[in-house]
């Protein structure tokens, strides 16, 4: 038999690679801006589009889906073709994948700046974009499985398995977490409410880390680390075992994001147990990578690619040791809601993901442009500056996390809270400044990479189609080479069964989930009532401005939290919250019992100028809420949507909802007038005040009534 000649498609790798670099710089730049905003709130410039609450989702989405996403696609398209010994299944699909993904990024970025958000962390993009993501992901899947089917190498190298795992799991996560009811083109409500929404969101959030930031990177690692070290992976058998272990354990660990919350105990315990088990497969991958490089330490001294890989793997090891530790309830009690979490994820993102990507690009670009790296010295300097950047970023934040948490929990001898919330924030501002400097250093390193890689590209000549040859697989063993993909599946009963099961499961879920969820959204606390139309509008403003990026709405059952915020939060209090807004970080205080704590006028002045009411506050001004009108036209549609989701507004309430809205607005206007504040009743500030004054008050009412009885 003659070897077949064919060409690898390098252009698609190049395009995804360039997209990686561009979006990487954008995402990191936004990160640096918001890091400085946390120390100097004036940097929000007093306009909606540049405040922390909108830029922070832009930063996380840009870094995760644009920077890391494009890098995964670049790396996997390169790897697929080489280890499967074939060109990608279909060039047109590759192009649709590339440009579709970039379109999603651009539309997503603009929509986040405009305040179109679902209010669920790392899944903020609104429903039309969710559909676009699904379509592009399916295109990627067809291209990937098509390539696997037409391969010339029977064995699937372990990296391929990691990409298969990534694709399947991300598809499932994205679909389940994106069930939402559209109200208008750019507004939807999560199908799930309160505690259920929280569970779905963190099942998604945790597994997004697992299957978007981890498994594909282990796939990249198993190809590029051996290649760069010029030696085979330390133990191939080990790589197989740790892949399957990782896949089976990861999906169950999500509830560790909700320890001490209103989530049922057994679900929390399940999350903890699986999180601790995860340390084995995670470290299996890290050690396998490091042991592969172990035989090439002499090269590590000189080669920036290997240096980056060593730090990346070490960061992966640290983050995956820390993760299980943070899942222990006693540790989580201290770490949760603090900057400890932010430090933890950045060890992973800057160290593992970032350095894997830069190492990969420094290795790939010279090869695809048929030349050598423009400056090895510059790359080594990037490595040093980047590593210092990570340390200057992470160490102060760990310190800040500990400091703030210990201050929160400190009582005086007479049993009073020792510190006001604002003191716990002002004391960590110096750490915030250091962190911002660390991030700037890291960004500086990335810019050096841009220059270095661009120079390498201009000095070499790009090989768009790289010639290769391989023996075809024997026909009887691999009919896929000649046949339409579907007839291949049909000939394999087991595979056919699997694919149909998956199809049926997805279809069934789409049909069943809505019914399930709506019926189960019944209140368990009688005193908890639906939001009034004005409060609902206020809540949507709260979501739009990204308040959840700094404020939690979940009081844990600890002595200090009850003393500081009030009675701990109950699951039954959130049944009308589409989406839930528990948050995951307290740069500001918890707001779940905010209602009735301060007069309306306090909130008005605080929104206009937070530092006036609370000197040293890091909150930016929200003075446009005083100018903007409430979108009253949307009220009926919103009420109807909520009714569809099972919120018990009376029949026909949508028609009179705005009358109710104005009645409540008038009473707030009157109360503000008493404190000499003049504002008209149709301004957004009225709605947000109504919402904040409602927060957590329902069960207070219940207590008052029962007190009266006794």
């Amino acid at each position, binding site marked *: 038999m003659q070897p077949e000649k064919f060409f690898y498609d390098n252009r698609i790798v190049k395009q995804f690679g360039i997209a990686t670099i561009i979006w990487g710089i954008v995402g990191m730049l936004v990160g640096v801006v918001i890091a400085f905003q946390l120390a100097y709130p004036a940097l929000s410039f007093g306009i909606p589009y540049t405040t922390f609450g909108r830029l922070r989702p832009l930063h996380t989405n840009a870094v995760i889906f644009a920077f890391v996403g494009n890098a995964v696609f670049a790396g996997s398209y390169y790897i697929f073709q*080489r280890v499967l010994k074939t060109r990608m299944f279909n060039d047109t699909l590759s192009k649709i994948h590339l440009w579709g993904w970039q379109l999603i990024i651009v539309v997503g970025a603009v929509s986040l700046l405009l305040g179109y958000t679902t209010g669920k962390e790392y899944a903020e993009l609104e429903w039309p974009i969710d559909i676009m993501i699904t379509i592009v992901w399916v295109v990627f899947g067809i291209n990937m499985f098509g390539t696997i089917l037409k391969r010339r190498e029977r064995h699937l190298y372990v990296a391929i398995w990691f990409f298969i795992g990534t694709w*399947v799991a991300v598809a499932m996560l994205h679909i389940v977490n994106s069930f939402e009811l559209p109200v208008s083109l750019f507004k939807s409500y999560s199908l799930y409410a309160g505690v259920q929404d929280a*569970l779905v969101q963190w099942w998604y959030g945790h597994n997004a880390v697992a299957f978007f930031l981890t498994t594909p990177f282990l796939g990249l690692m198993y190809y590029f680390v051996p290649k760069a070290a010029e030696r085979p992976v330390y133990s191939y058998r080990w790589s197989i075992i740790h892949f399957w272990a990782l896949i089976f354990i990861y999906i169950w660990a999500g509830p560790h994001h909700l320890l001490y919350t209103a989530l049922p105990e057994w679900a929390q315990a399940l999350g903890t147990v699986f999180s601790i088990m995860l340390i084995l497969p995670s470290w299996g991958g890290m050690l396998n990578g490091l042991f592969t490089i172990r035989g090439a330490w002499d090269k590590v001294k000189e080669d920036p690619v290997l240096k980056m890989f060593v730090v990346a793997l070490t960061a992966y090891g640290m983050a995956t040791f820390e993760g299980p530790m943070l899942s222990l309830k006693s540790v989580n009690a201290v770490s949760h809601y603090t900057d400890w979490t932010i430090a933890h994820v950045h060890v992973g993102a800057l160290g593992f993901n970032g350095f894997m990507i830069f190492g990969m690009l420094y290795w790939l670009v010279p090869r695809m442009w048929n030349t050598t790296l423009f400056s090895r010295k510059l790359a080594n300097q990037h490595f040093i500056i980047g590593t210092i950047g990570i340390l200057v970023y992470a160490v102060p934040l760990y310190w800040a996390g500990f400091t703030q948490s210990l201050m929160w929990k400190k009582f005086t001898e007479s049993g009073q809270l020792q510190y006001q919330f604002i003191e716990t924030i002002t004391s960590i501002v110096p750490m915030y400044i250091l962190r911002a400097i660390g991030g700037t250093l890291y960004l500086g390193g990335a810019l050096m990479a841009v220059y270095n890689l661009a120079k390498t590209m201009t000095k070499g000549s790009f090989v768009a189609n*790289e010639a290769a040859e391989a023996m075809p697989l024997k026909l009887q063993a691999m009919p896929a080479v000649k046949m339409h993909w579907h007839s291949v599946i049909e000939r394999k009963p087991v595979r056919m069964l*699997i694919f149909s*099961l998956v199809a049926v*499961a997805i279809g069934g879920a789409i049909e069943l989930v809505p019914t399930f969820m709506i019926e189960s959204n019944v209140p368990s606390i009688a005193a908890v009532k639906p939001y009034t139309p004005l409060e609902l509008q206020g809540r949507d403003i709260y979501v739009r401005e990204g308040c959840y990026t700094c404020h939690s709405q979940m009081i844990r059952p600890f002595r200090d939290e009850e003393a500081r915020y009030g009675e701990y939060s109950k699951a039954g209090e959130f049944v009308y919250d589409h989406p839930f807004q528990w948050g995951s970080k307290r740069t500001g205080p918890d707001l779940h019992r905010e209602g009735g704590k301060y007069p309306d006028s306090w909130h008005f002045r605080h929104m206009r100028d937070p530092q006036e009411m609370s000197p040293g506050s890091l909150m930016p001004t929200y003075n446009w809420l005083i100018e903007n009108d409430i979108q009253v036209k949307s009220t009926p549609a919103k009420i109807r949507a909520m009714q569809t989701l099972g919120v018990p507004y009376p029949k026909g309430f949508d028609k009179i909802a705005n009358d109710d809205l104005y009645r409540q607005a008038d009473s707030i206007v009157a109360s503000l007038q008493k404190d000499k504040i003049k504002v008209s009743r149709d301004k957004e500030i009225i709605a947000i005040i109504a919402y904040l004054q409602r927060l957590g008050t329902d069960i207070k009412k219940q207590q008052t009534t029962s007190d009266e009885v006794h």
Partner: protein
Amino acid sequence: MTVMIVLLSVSLGVGIFFLLAYRWSVKNGQFEDDQAPAYRIFFDDKKQQPK
């Protein structure tokens, strides 16, 4: 907490998918040789060596 049923069944579904994938890969003989695949990724290197 009906959402637990949804999440458990979806997670189990994916788990079963991977289990079947694992079964397929074992039966297909994917793991019979746990040495050569690690070396095979180096076979295409000659042409790519930069001058």
